[in-house]
C-alpha cells in the first residue's frame, strides 16, 4: 500500500488551566490518503478543530502540551522549526475557517492578499502574480475577477468571501486543504455552491481535503471517509457507506437522529442527544459518552471502550454493545416512529 499523505499517531493535546488540565484531544490516530476527502464530525468541544489546528501547528497558547506525532509526507511536523513550518503552511497544507468575515484582512484588497501569498512562496514577476490571482478568483467562481480583484473584503458577500478564502488557500497548490466548518455561517443555497466547489477541488487540483463540521448532512455528499469525534476521541471511523448505512456508535445514531430530514416523513419528535458534552477536565470514568447514552450498561462505567474493527474492513468503533444488540436497537434510536411502522 502506498504511504498515506498524512498520518496522525496517538495525538494528545492538553491545555493547562487554573481549573486543571483540559484534555482537548485525547489520543487519536488516523491516516489520510492523497486526494481523499475526510470528514471529521462532532459537537463543539469534541476536539475536531484542535486536532487540525495542531496539524497546522497554529496553536499559540503557551499552556498547550503535545504528545504524539504528525507525519506528513514522511516528515514529523511536530519536530519542525517555525521557519520550516511556515514553508509547509500555504505551500503544502492550507486551511480555511468558519468565519470568512474575520479571516481576511479588511485594509488590503483581496488581490493584494492573494498576490502576497503567491510572492511569499514563489519567485514571480509582478504581472505574473496578478494574473495568477485573477485566474484563481475565476476558478472559485467569482464573476468578473478583473474588476473584483481590486475590491476590499467588505465589498464581498459572505459566500463570495468564503470563495476568496478558498482562492487564497489554493494559491500555492497545496496537497492538503483543511476546511473548518466552511459553510456553517452561510445560507443553504450558498452552502450548496461552496460544497460543490470543494468537490471540484479534488478533481481539478487533486488536493486531499479535511472537512470539519457538526452536521452529518454536509459530509454525506462530499466526504469519502468519516471520523466521528466525541470528547477528544474518535468514537467511530468508516467510509461514507458504513457510517450512514451501518452506524455502530450510539453517538453517531444521536447525530443522525438530531437532523430534521427533508427526505423522510415528518417525525413527531427529533431524537436529540440528551445533556451536554462532558467536562474535558474530569472525564467520566469508563466510556465518555455513557452519561448521555440511553444504551449504557454496567460495563460502560467500568471499562473504557477501545476503537476496534468489529463489523468490516476499516470500520472502527468504540462501544461495548455487541454488534447484534446495536443493529437491533439502532433504528429505534435514530427514528423510533419509522421503526414502529415498519
Amino acid at each position, binding site marked *: 500500500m502506498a504511504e498515506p499523505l498524512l498520518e496522525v499517531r496517538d495525538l494528545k493535546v492538553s491545555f493547562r488551566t487554573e481549573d486543571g488540565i483540559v484534555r482537548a484531544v485525547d489520543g487519536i490516530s488516523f491516516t489520510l490518503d492523497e486526494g481523499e476527502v475526510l470528514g471529521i464530525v462532532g*459537537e*463543539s468541544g469534541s476536539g475536531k478543530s484542535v486536532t487540525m489546528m495542531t496539524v497546522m501547528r497554529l496553536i499559540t497558547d503557551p499552556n498547550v502540551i503535545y504528545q504524539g506525532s504528525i507525519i506528513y509526507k514522511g516528515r514529523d511536523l511536530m519536530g519542525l522549526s517555525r521557519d520550516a513550518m511556515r514553508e509547509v503552511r500555504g505551500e503544502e497544507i492550507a486551511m480555511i475557517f468558519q468565519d470568512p468575515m474575520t479571516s481576511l484582512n479588511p485594509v488590503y484588497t483581496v488581490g493584494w492578499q492573494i498576490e502576497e501569498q503567491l510572492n511569499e512562496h514563489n519567485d514571480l514577476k509582478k504581472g505574473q502574480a496578478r494574473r495568477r490571482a485573477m485566474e484563481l478568483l475565476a476558478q472559485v467562481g467569482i*464573476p468578473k475577477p478583473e474588476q473584483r480583484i481590486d475590491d476590499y473584503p467588505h465589498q464581498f*458577500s*459572505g*459566500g*463570495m468571501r468564503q470563495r476568496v478564502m478558498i482562492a487564497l488557500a489554493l494559491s500555492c497548490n497545496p496537497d492538503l486543504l483543511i476546511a473548518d466548518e466552511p459553510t456553517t455561517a452561510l*445560507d*443553504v*443555497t*450558498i*452552502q*450548496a*455552491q461552496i*460544497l*460543490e466547489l470543494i468537490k471540484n477541488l479534488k478533481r481539478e487540483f487533486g488536493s486531499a481535503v479535511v472537512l470539519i463540521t*457538526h*452536521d*452529518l*448532512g*454536509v459530509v*454525506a*455528499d462530499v466526504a469519502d471517509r468519516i471520523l466521528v469525534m466525541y470528547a477528544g476521541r474518535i468514537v467511530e471511523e468508516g467510509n*461514507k*457507506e458504513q457510517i*450512514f448505512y451501518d452506524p455502530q456508535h450510539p453517538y453517531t445514531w*444521536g*447525530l*443522525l*437522529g*438530531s*437532523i*430534521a*430530514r*427533508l*427526505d423522510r416523513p*415528518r*417525525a413527531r*419528535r*427529533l*431524537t*436529540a*442527544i*440528551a445533556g*451536554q458534552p462532558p467536562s474535558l477536565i474530569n472525564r467520566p470514568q469508563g466510556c465518555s459518552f455513557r452519561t448521555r447514552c440511553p444504551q449504557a450498561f454496567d460495563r460502560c462505567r467500568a471499562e473504557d471502550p477501545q476503537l476496534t474493527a468489529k463489523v468490516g474492513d476499516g470500520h472502527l468503533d468504540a462501544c461495548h454493545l455487541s454488534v447484534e444488540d446495536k443493529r437491533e436497537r439502532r433504528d429505534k434510536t435514530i427514528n423510533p416512529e419509522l421503526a414502529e411502522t415498519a
Partner: protein
Amino acid sequence: MASPSGPLLQAEHVIKYFPIKRGIVIQREVARVHAVDDVSLEVQRGETLGLVGESGCGKSTLGRSFVRLFPLTGGRIFFDGQDISTLSRRGMRPLRRELQIIFQDPYASLNPRKRVGQIVGAPLAIHGIGDRRERKRQVQELLEKVGLSPEHYNRYPHEFSGGQRQRIGVARALALRPKLVIADEPVSALDVSIQAQVINLLADLQEDFELTYVFIAHDLGVVRHVSDRIAVMYLGKIVELSPAEELYERPIMPYTEALLSAVPIPDPRESAARERIVLEGDVPSPINPPSGCRFHPRCRYATEVCTQLEPPLVDYGNGHLAACHHPLNVDKETLARATVDQRRTPAKADESAKPTQPAQQAR
C-alpha cells in the same frame, strides 16, 4: 376587521424601508433598503408559521415588525383584533406581555453582568408582577420548565453552553405567559444535536403554554419540522405561502424548489441521485431590487414577462399561494381554477397577470 375570534395576528401590506443617509450636519436620504415590501399574511391561534429565506430577504425585519420593535413605513398590523401599527411606546407596553421574541445569538442576547435570575425575572419586575419572593418562585419554576435547574438562579450567562443559554432566552420570553412568540433563528447558532433538544423543548412548551409561534429560520429541514404553514420570502416579498407538507411535496415557485434542493441530505446514495439546482450568485441588493419578479435574474424558468410585471399572489387552493408567472407542479385544471388573492397581493403587482401556462423547460 379582524375580531378576537379571528387570526391572532394579521399583517396588511406591511412595508419597512430603512433609509440610507449621507451628510454630517444635514443628513439627507440617498437610498432605501427595501427590507419588507408590501407583505400581507395572518397567524392563526395556536399554529406555528415558519418564515424562510436567505439572509437579507427581510424575514427577521418582518418578525420584528410583528412585535413593533420599530415604526412601520406603511401597512397595518392587528394583534388580537387591535391595530398596533400606530401605537405609541406607552400604548405598546401592555401588549409586550403578550408578544415576545427569542433571538438568534444566545451569546449577545443575554446581559453578561446579570445573573440568570435577574435576566429571566426582568420582564416580571418591569410589569410589576408579584413581590420579590413570588418572582423568584416563578423564575425557578420557569427554569425547570425549560430544562435547567432552579439552582442556576444565581449563575451568570458565561457559565452556560450555547444550548443552555438559548434555554435561558426561552425562559425569559415565556415569563409573562405571552400568546405569540417570535422565534428569530433560535437554533441556527447551535450544534445539530443541541438544535434537536431546543426544537423539542419549543414543541413541548407550545403545548403547555398554548403558544402561537412565528418561527424564522433559513434551515428548511428545521422549519418543516416545526411549522404548520410556511411563508417563503425573497427580497422583502412573500413568494410562496403554503401548508408545510404541501410546500415540500409540491413547491410552485422556482425559488422554493431551488431552496429545497440545496438542503443537504444525510444519505450518500440519495444525495448523489438527487438533482441539485445550484442557484447562481447571491441575493441582489435590496436597495435596488430587480424589476418585475424579483427572483428573475437567478431563475432558470424566467422569460420576458418576469422582467417586466410583478406577479400577483395566486391562490392554487388548499391555502397554497404563490407569486410566479411560471408555476411549477401545477396542471392545467388547477391553473384554470386558481384565482388571484386580491387581499394579499402587493399593491404594485399586476393583478391581471395571472399565469396562464405552467413552467416550460428549464433553461
